[in-house]
């Protein structure tokens, strides 16, 4: 088999080019955030921010109600993910471990609900929430985010639960455990990777959501119920061409997700496919 140096070299060269293509926007976001203004608007871009500054971060976090929005985003996201995990665990257990009429129909509905067209439902959700007098509140937002991630959570947990051999549970019950005890002691610990990967993806979905909060929570005054995606997208309008502060904001928004993802990626993605592929 003939393989010249060139023949062996090109995949590596392509890999480097692709690495730059995929990583550069992230790199550029972080470095711009640390650069001084004159380096940001210089004719020749500065690729290495040697004279770093934290000024942009203080300007970004000094924006009106920044910390309120951080709190809002965290509350809404964590509550939605926790709620959907709880509901999904119950449902997934029923679907994988019990036989009953309507099981298939339920699974089919969950499958379809995963593709629910939330993007075009903002108008009707606005009307419903308005008529209930719940605009500018975190409650409806949390509820709808919960529903956005619920079908996926059920679907994935179902895969993980089905992968836990039923014999484990049965032997626990033979040894005198009740069914709930068997679940808590045997299945639940084995679900850890599944719970982790589903919550990771649920977190990203809720953390990123823009159209709904854009419509529901317009009020910006004290006690605002806005979340970080709104803060980030409104940055350019508020700060004009202050790219340093905008990129600092984007970095602050992205870094938690990037870190969680890099740490859990192996487990989560491995877990995701384990749960998914297992028959």
């Amino acid at each position, binding site marked *: 088999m003939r393989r010249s140096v060139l023949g062996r070299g090109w*995949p*590596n060269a392509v*890999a480097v080019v*692709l690495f730059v*293509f*995929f*990583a550069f*926007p*992230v790199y*550029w*976001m972080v470095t711009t955030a640390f650069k001084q203004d004159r380096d*940001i608007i*210089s004719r020749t*871009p500065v690729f290495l921010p040697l004279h770093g500054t934290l000024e942009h971060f203080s300007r970004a976090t000094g924006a009106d109600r920044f910390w309120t929005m951080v709190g809002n985003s965290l509350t809404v996201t964590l509550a939605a993910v926790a709620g959907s995990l709880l*509901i999904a665990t*119950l*449902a997934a*257990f029923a*679907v*994988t*471990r*019990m036989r*009953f009429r309507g099981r298939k129909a339920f699974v089919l509905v969950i*499958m*379809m*609900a995963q*593709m*629910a*067209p939330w*993007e*075009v439902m*903002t108008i*009707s959700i606005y*009307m419903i929430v308005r008529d209930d007098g719940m605009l500018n509140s975190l409650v409806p937002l949390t*509820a*709808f985010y919960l*529903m956005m*991630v619920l079908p*996926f959570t059920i*679907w994935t947990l179902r*895969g993980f639960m*089905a*992968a836990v051999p*039923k014999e484990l549970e049965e032997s626990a019950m033979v040894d005198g455990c009740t069914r709930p005890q068997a679940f808590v002691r045997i299945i639940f610990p084995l679900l850890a990777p599944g719970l982790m990967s589903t919550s990771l993806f649920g977190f*990203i*979905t809720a953390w*990123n959501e823009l*159209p709904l909060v854009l419509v529901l929570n317009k009020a910006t005054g004290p006690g605002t119920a806005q979340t970080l*995606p709104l803060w*980030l*997208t409104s940055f350019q309008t508020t700060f004009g*061409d202050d*790219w340093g502060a905008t*990129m600092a904001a*984007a970095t602050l*928004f992205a870094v938690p*997700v990037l870190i969680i993802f*890099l740490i859990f990626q192996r487990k989560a993605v491995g877990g995701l496919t384990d749960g*998914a592929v*297992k028959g």
Partner: protein
Amino acid sequence: MAVQSEPARVTAPGPGTGGDAPEGPAPVAGRGPLSRTAPYLLLLPAVAATLVLLVWPLTETLLLSFQNLNKRQLILHLTEWNGLDNYRAQLTSGEFWHTAGRSVAFTAVNVVLIMAGGTLVGLLLNRLGGTMRLLLSIGLILAWAMPFVASTTVYTWLFDSRYGVVDWFLDQLGWHGMATYDWYGSQLSTFFVIVLLIVWGSIPFVAFNTYAGLTTIPKELYEAARMDGAGATKVFTQVIFPSLRPFFLATTFLEVIWVFKCFTQVFAINAGGPERLTETLPVYAFVEGIGNQHYGTGAAIAVLTIVMLGGLMTYYFRIVLRQEEEL
């Protein structure tokens, strides 16, 4: 999931995901009335949430689409039914059909690039040595994990007309006309940025899954094909593609659905501009309904969009259900 939406767009169930429920009678201790109602009690929260938070808004969308509902009616809480007027107006307007056509073309371009790019990157991952594979994986994970509200902002900055690094780079390459090019000034260049943004963020998912799929193909198959004198193209069409066919089909449809209903990236880049020329259907529904306060019209566009999505989804489910022997 989504992905997103887009869903997060990464919230993807792998294609044909489905651990199957092990069948057979469940190990029920007693067959009393409690154990018969138990599954329904366990499902109750999920069903209730779905009814209140998903089915109700969907129904409401349908109801709103038959109403004349603008700013005045909204403020005064008036309900004015107007039958099929909203639909008639949309289906006879050039704008709706233009937007629908644009959405279809937009989806097609994105999905072709995502699938082709993702497959090629996956094949490359399979071929690389350990170090380079790790390097490329890190790049892919960064792009994949980047929240798309943040990446949209970053792309706006990369393609800024005055200080954007892309314009500078093209100028350095000798394309001096691009030195201060305004990417958001025309329809095609705005779409270029949006497509690049979406493709950049979506390739990692396809690439990793292709790679994972490739590692499951037994080495003997490649060897046998090589022995028979198959070249790289032959190996792909005769060995790889048939093995990963279910994956390719399911992923393609998932991507079609995600891109078709994608909102955040399209909207946040340029709000559908210039002159509403980059509005896709979800953005069109949003701008008409919420922006221009023609809620009834917006709801009708939403329903038409959902109908189109429904068509795509039916096709997708037929593929997935065929793969799953049993739910």
